[in-house]
């Protein structure tokens, strides 16, 4: 349980008790370690990330442990999941030639989705990407992959040349080079990571604020009306987050596919 929620539950902090609103903030994202090994503390987000990885591994392992020609049960579900990623994310960007990247994109999508959806599951109730340290490794995997593929398929100079469209006069080239270099090497991966982090961070903060406010405003007086309003907003944000968790995983994976496509095919 995070700080302010614990204070509310333990002390019965309500609006008419003379208790100030314990506004959720950054402290809602800091967790006491379950245990420490030297200076390393094992926290809840780490546990949830491992849990998310296990969920994805076990799901696909169970689905395709003994694959049958006519799929049934879990295999059906697994095939539907893979085909959805192939048809909605991979093929539109990479075409049939990009099918070799399907395992990467499927793993990436479901790992991010399960980490995101932890936010909405009672007891777990924390989106792992709301801690940016969990997002950067995913971004670096994508970043180094598309750089490697770009240099491999287009060569060192060729890759840089494709960053600026042909037919641009050379003085404009000089003006655009710093912008293109920064865009490509810094801001493209930066926006990829920060968007996922920002959305999950904001979603969790909103949910915490309205949930805490519902409890804080709850009383047998006019405060009940305020509490009902806050509760309604908490439900609204919860429903919105069901969509956001899926959408953020989808956007991250789709952008990964388009970045790989632009590295593999220069004219993309």
């Amino acid at each position: 349980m995070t700080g302010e929620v614990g204070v509310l539950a333990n002390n019965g902090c309500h609006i008419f008790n003379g208790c100030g609103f314990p506004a959720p903030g950054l402290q809602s994202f800091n967790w006491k370690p379950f245990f420490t090994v030297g200076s390393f503390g094992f926290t809840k987000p780490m546990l949830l990330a491992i849990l998310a990885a296990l969920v994805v591994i076990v799901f696909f392992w169970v689905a395709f442990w003994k694959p049958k020609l006519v799929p049934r049960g879990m295999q059906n579900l697994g095939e539907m999941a893979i085909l959805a990623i192939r048809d909605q994310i991979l093929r539109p960007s990479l075409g049939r030639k990009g099918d070799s990247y399907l395992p990467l994109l499927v793993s990436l999508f479901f790992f991010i989705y399960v980490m995101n959806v932890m936010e909405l599951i009672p007891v777990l109730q924390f989106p792992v990407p709301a801690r940016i340290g969990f997002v950067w490794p995913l971004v670096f995997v994508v970043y180094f992959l598309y750089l490697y593929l770009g240099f491999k398929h287009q060569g060192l100079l060729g890759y840089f040349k494709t960053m600026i469209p042909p037919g641009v006069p050379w003085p404009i080239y000089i003006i655009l080079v710093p912008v293109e270099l920064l865009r490509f090497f810094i801001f493209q991966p930066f926006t990829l990571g920060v968007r996922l982090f920002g959305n999950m961070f904001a979603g969790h903060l909103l949910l915490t604020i309205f949930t805490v406010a519902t409890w804080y405003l709850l009383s047998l007086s006019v405060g009940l009306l305020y509490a009902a309003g806050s509760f309604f907003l908490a439900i609204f944000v919860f429903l919105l987050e069901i969509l956001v968790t899926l959408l953020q995983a989808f956007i991250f994976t789709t952008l990964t596919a388009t970045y790989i496509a632009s590295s593999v095919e220069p004219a993309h």
Partner: protein
Amino acid sequence: MSDHGNGAAARTAQDEAAAQGRAQGLETGWTVFSYLLAGMAAYGGIGWLIGRAVHVPLLFPIGMLLGLGISIGYIIHRFGRQQVVERPRKEITGDR
């Protein structure tokens, strides 16, 4: 191929086109956003460096504005022109 088969194929083609449009739209949107940031950072940085050397701090915000202008110009040049979308032609059957 039967009419039913043609209809299914047309739906699949439409779905593929919609998915492609979605992926392109996402890429364009985030590329544009990255250009805006990169323009300001690149020329803001150059302005800041020159400003530090010549002791004119104003060159930093001027550089940022210049970079923003360059980014916007480049975005218009690269993405501003409306793309011609090929639509499947309707069969002229003459029975209207």
